[in-house]
C-alpha cells in the first residue's frame, strides 16, 4: 500500500511544486525515489514528530500541501495537540500519512499497534479520514486528497487484499459515500458488511461463512465528522449492517456509524452490529494474521 501511495505522490509532485513530503526519519526503501527526484520537496524532520507536525502547519500556511509520513502512532498520538491546534483548528492543508494501520506491525508490540487512531482523528472537526482498502480506493483517496485544501489523515495498511478476485473499481468515490466491494449471491439482500481501511480480505472471508453469506460488502474509505449528515440515507437502505474495522470499538468506525444512526430520522429500523478488535490485543504480540485469528477478528 505504501509503495503505491509513494508512486502516486511522486507522480503528483512532478506537476505540483507545492507538494512537500516530510518524514519522521522513516520510510527506508520507500521514499528514496521521491527524495532523489524532488529533493527540494522532501524534508527528513528527524525523530521529532511534534516539530515535524508544527512545521507542517507553518509550511501549509505558506501554501504548501504537506504530507507528514511516519508509522503507527508516531505522527498521530505523539503530536496529537499539534494536529488539533496547529493543523485542524487553522484548517491547513496537511495530510498525516500513517503506514501500518491496525495490526500491520503487530509483532512489534503495543507501541506499534495503530488501533486507536480513528478515535483521535475523528474528534477533529476539519479532519477527513482516508482509510483505503483496495488499490482503487488508494488511487481515489489520493485524487481527493490532491484536490482538497483541508486536513487529512491517510491510514495505510500493510498489504492489498488477496482474496478479492475481481475488485470493483468504481469511479464515483466521494467523501462520505459508501462503495460496493462485493455483492453476495442474493442480490436482493438488505444486509451488508461495511468496512473501512485494510480489512477487505477479512470481510471476504466473513462472507464465505454461512452466517454472512447473505451479506453484501461495502466500504466507506473517506469519512469523518464533516460527513456524518451524509450517512442517514445510506444507513436507512439496510435492514442490517455489520461494521468491520481493525481498531478498538471505542471511538472507532462502528461507533461513528452508530452515532450517525442515532441522530437520524429513522424510516425503518436498521440493526447495526459492530465488529472490531478485542481490547486484549493490546497485551499480545504477534503478526497481524495470527493476532486476528487468535482474537477471532471478523468471526
Amino acid at each position, binding site marked *: 500500500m505504501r509503495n503505491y501511495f509513494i508512486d502516486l505522490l511522486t507522480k503528483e509532485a512532478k506537476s505540483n511544486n507545492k507538494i512537500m513530503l516530510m518524514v519522521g526519519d522513516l520510510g527506508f526503501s520507500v521514499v528514496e525515489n521521491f527524495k532523489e527526484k524532488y529533493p*527540494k520537496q522532501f*524534508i527528513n*524532520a*528527524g525523530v*521529532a514528530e*511534534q*516539530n*515535524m*507536525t*508544527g*512545521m*507542517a*502547519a*507553518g*509550511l*501549509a*500556511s*505558506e501554501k*504548501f500541501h504537506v504530507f507528514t509520513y511516519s508509522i503507527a502512532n508516531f505522527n498521530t498520538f505523539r503530536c496529537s*495537540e*499539534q494536529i488539533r*491546534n*496547529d493543523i485542524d*483548528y*487553522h484548517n491547513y492543508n496537511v495530510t498525516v500519512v500513517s503506514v501500518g494501520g491496525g495490526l500491520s506491525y503487530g509483532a512489534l508490540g503495543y507501541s506499534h499497534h495503530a488501533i486507536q487512531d480513528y478515535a483521535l482523528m475523528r474528534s477533529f472537526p476539519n479532519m477527513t479520514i482516508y482509510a483505503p482498502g483496495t488499490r482503487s480506493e488508494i488511487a481515489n483517496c489520493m485524487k481527493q486528497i490532491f484536490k482538497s485544501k483541508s486536513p487529512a489523515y491517510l491510514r495505510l495498511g500493510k498489504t492489498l487484499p488477496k482474496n478479492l478476485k475481481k475488485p470493483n473499481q468504481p469511479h464515483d468515490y466521494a467523501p462520505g459515500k459508501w462503495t460496493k466491494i462485493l455483492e453476495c449471491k442474493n442480490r436482493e439482500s438488505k444486509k451488508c458488511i461495511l468496512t473501512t481501511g485494510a480489512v477487505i480480505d477479512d470481510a471476504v472471508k466473513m462472507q464465505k461463512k454461512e452466517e454472512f453469506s447473505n451479506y453484501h460488502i461495502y466500504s466507506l474509505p473517506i469519512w469523518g465528522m464533516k460527513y456524518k449528515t451524509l450517512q442517514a440515507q445510506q444507513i436507512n437502505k439496510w435492514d442490517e449492517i455489520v461494521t468491520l474495522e481493525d481498531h478498538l470499538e471505542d471511538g472507532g468506525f462502528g461507533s461513528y456509524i452508530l452515532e450517525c444512526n442515532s441522530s437520524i430520522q429513522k424510516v425503518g429500523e436498521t440493526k447495526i452490529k459492530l465488529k472490531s478488535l478485542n481490547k486484549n490485543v493490546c497485551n499480545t504480540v504477534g503478526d497481524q494474521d495470527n493476532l486476528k485469528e487468535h482474537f477471532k477478528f471478523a468471526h
Partner: protein
Amino acid sequence: MKINSSVLLSKYIKAYTLKMVSKAKASHVGGGLSISDLLAVLYNNILYFDSQKPLLESRDRFILSKGHCCAALYATLALKNFFTLRDLNSFAQFGSNFMSHASHKVKGVEFSTGSLGHGLPYAVGKAVAAKSRNKKWEVFVLLSDGELNEGSNWEATLFASHHNLNNLTIIVDYNKLQSLTTVEKTIKIEPLKDKFESFGCYVSEVNGHDHKELKNSLSKTNKKNSPKVIIAHTVKGKGVSFMENRVEWHYKSPDKDQLEMALNEIGVSL
C-alpha cells in the same frame, strides 16, 4: 492614532493591555507588560508590514508563541491600524474574535497559540518555506522563558540550526517568573545562552526594555549562517510598581482603582 516613536508606542501598548485585561477581568497582564517594549520595537522599527493588507506576501511574519499575552499583541495591532482601538473593547467577550489567547481570527495575528511550545515549530516551517522559495521576508517568534520547558522548542531549535535558518529570529521573554514561582525554582534553564549556542544558534542577550539595545539586536542583518536567538531580560509587570516581579499578576486582573494607579504610573490617560 499616529505614534512614531517606539517608546511612546510601548506606553500605549501597556496602557491598552491594562485596560483590556481589567475590563475583561482576564489574566496574564504581567507577561503582557513584560513584552510591550519588545512588541513596540518590532512593530515600530523592525517588521515590514502593511496593516491594510495583513496577508501581504512580502510581510515579515511575527508569531506570538506565548499566546496568553495576546492582549499586548492586539493592542499593538490596533495602535498600528490593523483594526480600530474600539475593537479592543470586545477582548475576551462572548462571540468576539479577540480571544484571550492569540487568535488567527484577528487581523495581523499569524497563528493561534495558547498551548505553549507550538509557536517555534510553526515559525521554523515558515522559515523553511521562505528559504525554499528564495523569499526575503523573515520570521520572528516570541517565546516565554517558562515555555522553554516544552521539548518541542528544542526539537525545533535543532532543526533550525541544522538547516541554517538565518531568516529566523527567536526572542525569549526572560522575565524569570513562571506560573507558580521563579524559573530558577521551577525548572532551571541556565546557562541559557550556552544552551542555545551549543544548539548552533547565534545568541545575544539584551535588556528587553531598552529600545536602543532591542533595535540593534533585532535589526535584520544576520550575516551568520544560523538562526538568531535574542534573550531579552525583562521584568514581569514592567512599568507598574505593584505588579513588577509578582507571580500573582500572572492571574489577577486590576480593579478600577488599580487600573487608574497603573495608568498613572505608565503616564498615559485613555
